């Protein structure tokens, strides 16, 4: 047991020891890079990962575990790393939980250990290790319940502070991300022997191939192993193939590109680390790029992930996966230890012995759990003379900040204490099959290989190499070529008559010969035995598994969730299969009976920035700019977002001190003189065809057959469920020609609705639709002087008089001496008003012209706020009233529902709950004290009743200060509203703590007779 005392006693010792650098096939020792870890400066070389560089500098202690804060080193050499997580960079670019094993070294790299306090060597929360008898799996479900209020105040803050790993950056991510789309016939994922040979075979067949490699270098395990292909080192063979592929025009090779997910329709999510290997991206360059690759066929050649073996104190720095040890030696030229114990249950792990010796390390012992030494084992031992324990296991280890000793229990049960600074462990390999299961596919257990292999039932996905359970290089090369050809053939590319390249020869015998050994624990582990970790990062031990099983959490999903096994940043890549095996043992089932948990994307953690992409900040969504936008900017307008549109909200003048003042002035201008407003954003749909009128009858509630040419009419649409959907005016321009307007918000949905009605419900109707929203710059000119202003613009041949062009008239006109335009006599403000439409490019000029010719009439532009005030003054429903929950009756328009025809929503609008007379119905409200605001969202309760829901009779939908009436006014919905005009009601706004008395009035506050409208 190691606790706080141990931590103190060894705090002063330094375990750092710089090793001399060997040559490695992936590094360039002619150049030196500087970097720092926890404030100490070190050097490394191009091609190094942070992990290899730390190891080369003798740094073994790199992190602390999640729960017990145990000292941890580097376990792996790849993305599966559970322990060596650091905070990378700093400031706004701080990247928590970065795996040192896949972090490419660059000059000036800054890294910091995390989840420790005050520092890595001495971590006060190491005390959690002493508390471990209490802190078992799921202990928190059993306590912290009393008193109830203490959870948020005390227990939870303590737990939250102790939990978590690294710290997210405090500022906005300064880097740019972009997205990209790519298409291919065959996507090959992984560039080890199987991936390269399948890419080559598919490409030679003529298929369009994309080869994706997560690593910065291609070659996969060929760079990690000391292996010869065709008389060349494997990595050189790989480079030759890559050069060949690069010369083929049908091949795209992507490095630093992780395929993180497989989605429907051959869609693969890929993240490319464009500039993570630099201190910061070049100007304009993205940090990362999200690729959406659409592939007809996918080949998973992702290799495997080596398993640790579960033994007591198997988590100390210096205990590494055997394959990782070989990677550090062969690729990076780093020997992770000088005195090694190699602990295996298979022949593959024994390669480590020769590689370590070649790198100058001493082999303190070889521990092979298999009962009999394999021929491979015998050969290696003969060649190396290393002491071999067969049928043995590691019973314990010691060394707080780094392993110092292995206690080996031989096949007779005798313990041997072997000093060492490195334990290389191989419990066998698990095919990396995540991508084969994202579509819900479940892998199958293979007894011979003692692991899960893909069970593919897919026409567009293939697996090759270790990922398929093919454990030798020669077989992987052969299988890769076959699969590559098959995938190309599925895309219609015939197999070449001769194999594209002769299957390369692997110049050594490879055997695997794994015999499962999941753990090295005693049957009845004593209380005092050291912790045997299954999931390193989340500190899940063999004991936790047993406890969970004892408490009934024997379904594998329950085990995972109860113990948090496999839920850390590595998603249990090195833990899950061992855990299943232990659970199977505890529950006395077979491993297949125990089942597996579902693997989910992403295969590796992906930065949110990359998934979010380039649309950030002010460019989160596109802008739609009305034709007068630039002009409004020049006028100093204040803008508001209306869906995607940016609209002028008001046009302040320099002498105005508040927006209210501006809006009041704009309203008064319209009511007393003339104003104009860009209303282009309203949807406009051109409707033509012999059945156009009949079609309008079906989609609107009211009648359309008799609308004369040159006239417009208000129309209300329902959804098929009988509730109001949208409204607007539609004008008849010709015999079979109409132009419909919609609300700004519903322009798209209405178009979709019309297309639905036409294409699906009534395809027999002869009618055509097209949007003309963007075609016309449409400007409302409103106010008593509107006609006077228009007379300055509209060509004189057109008679603008009230008699000739009355309310709701529509016409094609010319303006400015022949410019085509459309004129509608429509009014949202209630004043004499027109909407003048010109081709969009002239909108800007029209605004300028209106200002000039209108100057003598006192013209001014007005924004959406004044527009809103005036429509409330006139009682016109808008978005807050047409909120999808109201009926025609609620809106006071029950009488326009035609009884003579079928229309969308007619039948369902007649249901009892929609025709209930007590439904809240549109009313107007005026406060008894005119200056007391009526707040939208307030509820309406009878005067004098308590503020409880049972007296709630309605609510305010829109409200405004009316400069015309010099009073606050509001529209709202009130039960039996139309019958209650004159009644005083209480307007409750409990959020603001106010109750205001208001009179129920007609919703039309201004000019109820419509005199001004018809002027």
């Amino acid at each position, binding site marked *: 047991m190691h606790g706080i005392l141990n931590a103190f006693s060894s705090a002063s010792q330094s375990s750092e020891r710089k090793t001399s650098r060997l040559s490695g096939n992936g590094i360039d020792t002619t150049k030196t890079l500087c970097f720092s870890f926890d404030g100490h400066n070190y050097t490394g070389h191009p091609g190094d990962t942070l992990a290899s560089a730390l190891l080369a500098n003798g740094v073994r202690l790199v992190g602390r575990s999640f729960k017990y804060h145990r000292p941890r080193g580097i376990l792996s050499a790849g993305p599966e790393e559970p322990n060596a997580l650091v905070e990378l960079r700093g400031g706004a670019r701080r990247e928590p939980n970065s795996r040192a094993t896949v972090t490419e070294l660059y000059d000036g790299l800054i890294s910091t250990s995390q989840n420790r306090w005050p520092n890595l060597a001495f971590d006060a929360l190491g005390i959690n290790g002493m508390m471990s008898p209490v802190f078992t799996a799921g202990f928190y479900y059993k306590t912290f319940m009393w008193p109830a209020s203490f959870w948020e105040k005390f227990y939870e803050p303590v737990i939250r502070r102790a939990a978590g790993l690294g710290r997210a950056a405090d500022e906005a991510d300064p880097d740019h991300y972009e997205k990209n789309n790519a298409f291919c016939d065959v996507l090959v994922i992984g560039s080890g022997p199987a991936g390269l040979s399948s890419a080559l075979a598919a490409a030679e067949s003529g298929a369009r191939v994309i080869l994706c490699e997560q690593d910065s270098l291609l070659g996969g395990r060929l760079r990690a192993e000391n292996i010869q292909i065709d008389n060349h080192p494997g990595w050189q063979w790989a480079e030759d193939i890559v050069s060949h592929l690069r010369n083929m025009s049908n091949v795209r090779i992507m490095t630093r590109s992780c395929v993180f997910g497989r*989605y*429907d329709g051959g*869609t693969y999510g890929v993240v490319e680390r464009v500039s993570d290997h630099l201190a910061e991206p070049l100007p304009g360059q993205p940090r990362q790029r999200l690729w959406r690759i*659409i592939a007809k066929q996918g080949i998973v050649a992702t290799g495997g992930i080596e398993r640790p073996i579960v033994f007591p104190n198997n988590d100390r720095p210096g205990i590494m996966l055997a394959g990782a040890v070989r990677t550090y030696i062969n690729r990076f030229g780093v020997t992770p230890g000088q005195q090694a114990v190699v602990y295996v249950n298979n022949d593959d792990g024994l390669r480590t012995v020769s590689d370590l010796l070649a790198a100058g390390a001493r082999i303190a012992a070889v521990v092979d759990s298999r009962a009999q030494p394999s021929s491979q084992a015998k050969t290696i031992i003969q060649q190396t003379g290393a002491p071999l324990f067969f049928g043995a296991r590691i019973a314990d280890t010691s060394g707080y900040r780094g392993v110092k000793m292995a206690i080996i229990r031989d096949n007779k049960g005798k313990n041997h204490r072997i000093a060492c600074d490195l334990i290389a462990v191989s419990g066998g390999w698990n095919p990396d099959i995540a991508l084969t299961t994202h579509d819900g596919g479940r892998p199958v257990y293979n007894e011979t290989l003692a692991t899960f292999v893909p069970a593919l039932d897919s026409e567009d996905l293939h697996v090759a190499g270790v990922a398929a359970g093919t454990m030798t290089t020669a077989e992987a090369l052969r299988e890769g070529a076959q699969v590559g050809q098959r995938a190309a053939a599925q895309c219609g590319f015939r197999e070449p008559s001769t194999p594209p390249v002769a299957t390369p020869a692997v110049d050594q015998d490879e055997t695997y010969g794994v015999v499962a050994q999941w753990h090295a624990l005693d049957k009845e582990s004593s209380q005092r035995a050291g912790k045997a970790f299954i999931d390193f990062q989340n500190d899940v031990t063999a004991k936790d598994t047993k406890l969970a099983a004892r408490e009934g959490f024997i379904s594998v999903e329950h085990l995972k969730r109860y113990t948090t096994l496999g839920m850390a940043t590595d998603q249990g890549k090195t833990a899950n299969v061992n855990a299943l095996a232990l659970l199977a043992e505890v529950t006395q089932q077979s491993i297949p009976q125990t089942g597996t948990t579902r693997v989910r994307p992403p295969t590796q953690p992906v930065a949110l920035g990359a998934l979010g992409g380039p649309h950030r900040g002010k460019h989160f969504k596109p802008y739609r700019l009305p034709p007068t936008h630039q002009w409004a900017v020049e006028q100093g307008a204040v803008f508001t977002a209306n869906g995607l549109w940016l609209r002028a909200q008001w046009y302040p003048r320099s002498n105005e001190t508040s927006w209210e003042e501006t809006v009041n002035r704009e309203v008064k201008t319209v009511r007393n003189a003339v104003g104009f407003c860009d209303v282009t954003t309203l949807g406009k749909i051109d409707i033509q065809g012999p059945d156009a009128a009949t079609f309008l009858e079906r989609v609107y509630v009211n009648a359309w057959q008799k609308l004369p040419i040159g006239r417009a009419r208000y129309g209300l649409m329902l959804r*098929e469920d009988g509730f109001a959907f949208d409204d607007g005016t539609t004008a008849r321009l010709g015999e079979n020609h109409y132009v419909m307007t919609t609300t700004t918000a519903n322009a798209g949905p209405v178009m979709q609705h019309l297309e*639905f009605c036409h294409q699906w419900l009534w*395809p027999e109707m002869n009618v055509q639709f097209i949007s003309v929203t963007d075609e016309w710059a449409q400007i409302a000119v409103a106010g008593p002087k509107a006609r006077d202003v228009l007379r300055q613009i509209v060509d004189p041949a057109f008679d603008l008089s009230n008699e000739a062009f009355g309310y709701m008239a529509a016409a094609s006109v010319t303006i400015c001496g022949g410019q085509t335009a459309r004129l509608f006599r429509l009014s949202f403000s209630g004043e004499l008003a027109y909407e003048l439409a010109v081709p969009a490019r002239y909108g800007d000029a029209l605004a300028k012209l209106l200002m000039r010719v209108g100057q003598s009439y006192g013209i001014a532009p007005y924004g959406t706020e004044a527009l809103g005030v005036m429509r409330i003054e006139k009682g016109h429903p808008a978005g807050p009233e047409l909120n999808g929950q109201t009926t025609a009756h609620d809106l006071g328009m029950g009488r326009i529902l035609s009884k003579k025809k079928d229309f969308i929503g*007619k*039948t*369902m609008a007649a249901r009892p709950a929609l025709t209930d007379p007590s439904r809240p119905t549109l009313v107007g409200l005026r406060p008894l004290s005119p200056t007391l605001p009526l707040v939208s969202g307030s509820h309406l309760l009878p005067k004098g009743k308590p503020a409880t829901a049972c007296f709630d009779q309605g609510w305010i939908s829109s409200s405004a200060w009316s400069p015309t009436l010099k009073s606050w006014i509001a529209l709202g919905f009130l039960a039996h509203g139309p019958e209650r005009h004159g009644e005083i009601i209480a307007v409750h706004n409990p959020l603001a703590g106010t109750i205001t008395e208001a009179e129920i009035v007609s919703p039309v506050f201004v000019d109820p007779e419509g005199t001004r409208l018809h002027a």
Partner: protein
Amino acid sequence: MRLTCPHCGARALEEFTYRGDATLRRPAEDAPHQAWVDYVYLRDDPAGYHSELWYHGVGCRAWLVVIRNTLTHQIKSVSSAVASPAPNKSDS
């Protein structure tokens, strides 16, 4: 998921808008109330092949009838709604 629009070719999901069950038929105006309630509200919601309406809104603006497996997301067919005869539930 990708849909092969009969007009535009294979396109990504974000170009389309979903509507739902394509086996429903709008009742006559005078059909029994329950027929209307069924049409607007009740669904078979099968686990397996589902005939459904999609709108290629940013493409050709065609409404499409897609037969798709709700368990696997596999697409069996995509056809133009205008050209589609009333889909027969039994063959989907």
